[in-house]
């Protein structure tokens, strides 16, 4: 029981202080899980990052499940997930309760007019780095998917399934040739 509470507490801290999400929080997790609690070794942490990035879902959540499950099975996983989720759940709930009234305020509205294009820029920024690792064909595929999802409102789920299938077929074809 004590270890479950420790897991919950550690991930509460991680959940409460990871702004920006994703890669921004990796150093914090690293500190808590490796240096502070000594739950994982460096090598295991690298393994964890590989898994957390290939699996669906936010990296914070995936990391929590991995660490919790390794330590205490499914109970540990649940404790860690609760820890990561509770801070953002409570904060957003409070924001949601009061934001509707605040939204009509002239100043708040002006602030959001300034923040909207900044949000778009933050989304655009990583695309360049991601595209750099791809060849012309893959870039064309990515661009086509972006256009179809945007223009026709088609769900990206179909493309994820097609991509997974395409990857499997490609491996199978190469296997035959080899």
């Amino acid at each position, binding site marked *: 029981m004590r270890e479950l509470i420790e897991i919950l507490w550690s991930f509460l801290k991680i*959940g409460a202080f*990871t*702004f*920006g*999400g*994703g890669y*921004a929080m990796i150093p914090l997790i690293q500190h808590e899980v490796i240096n502070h609690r000594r739950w994982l070794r460096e090598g295991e942490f690298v393994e964890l990052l*590989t898994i957390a990035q*290939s*699996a*669906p*879902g*936010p*990296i*914070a*959540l995936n990391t929590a*499940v*991995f660490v919790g499950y*390794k330590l205490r099975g499914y109970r540990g996983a649940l404790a860690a*997930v609760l820890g990561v*989720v509770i*801070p*953002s759940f409570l*904060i*957003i709930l409070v924001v*949601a309760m009061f*934001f509707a009234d605040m939204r009509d305020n002239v*100043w708040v*509205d*002006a*602030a*959001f007019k*300034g*923040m*909207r*294009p*900044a*949000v*778009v*820029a*933050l*989304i655009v920024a*990583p*695309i360049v780095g*991601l*595209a750099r690792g791809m060849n012309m064909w893959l*870039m064309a595929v*990515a*661009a086509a*998917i*972006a256009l179809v*999802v*945007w223009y026709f409102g088609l769900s*990206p*789920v179909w493309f*994820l399934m097609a*991509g*997974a*299938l395409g990857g*499997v077929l490609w491996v199978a074809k190469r296997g035959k040739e080899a």
Partner: protein
Amino acid sequence: MGIAVLIKLFVSYLKIGFFGFGGGYAMLSLIHSEVVVRNAWLTNGEFSDIVAISQMTPGPIAINSATYIGYEVAGIWGSVVATTAVCLPALTIMMLLTRFFLRLRDNLYVQGVVQGMRPVVVGMIASAALLLIFPASDDGRSFIDLWSWAIFGLTLLGSWRKVNPILLIVVSGIAGVLIYGL
């Protein structure tokens, strides 16, 4: 309202959790597709406001958006249902992967799946940007004048220079107050 909406929320966020490959920004296009296009729970503008709020509050954007949209659509129970639903796939899939991935990682087909989804993830991030730059309806435009494009350009530069994203959002908010509020 009632149970039907809760079920819809549950299914939508289960889907978002299950197909949420590639991290926060890639998930945005999935969230947009469910929340704005399919169910019309939010307008484009409200969607983009939630993204801004998520940047400034701790926690993954998928969870933030689940809590917020759940509350907007069906109150506190809505936010509990949506938040639970978005966590369930990660919880089950990661437990399985933690057990089996070391054996699976060297499997060529698993590598094929991961590789095949990579260009899709990049496309999804790009579509999220397009959806916010050129929304289907006029309400909630992200870009209203030249100032918008200036803020966009400067934030992009800042982001490439590794300036903290929260700082960029806060500065843009202050710029908004100075430009549009005074």
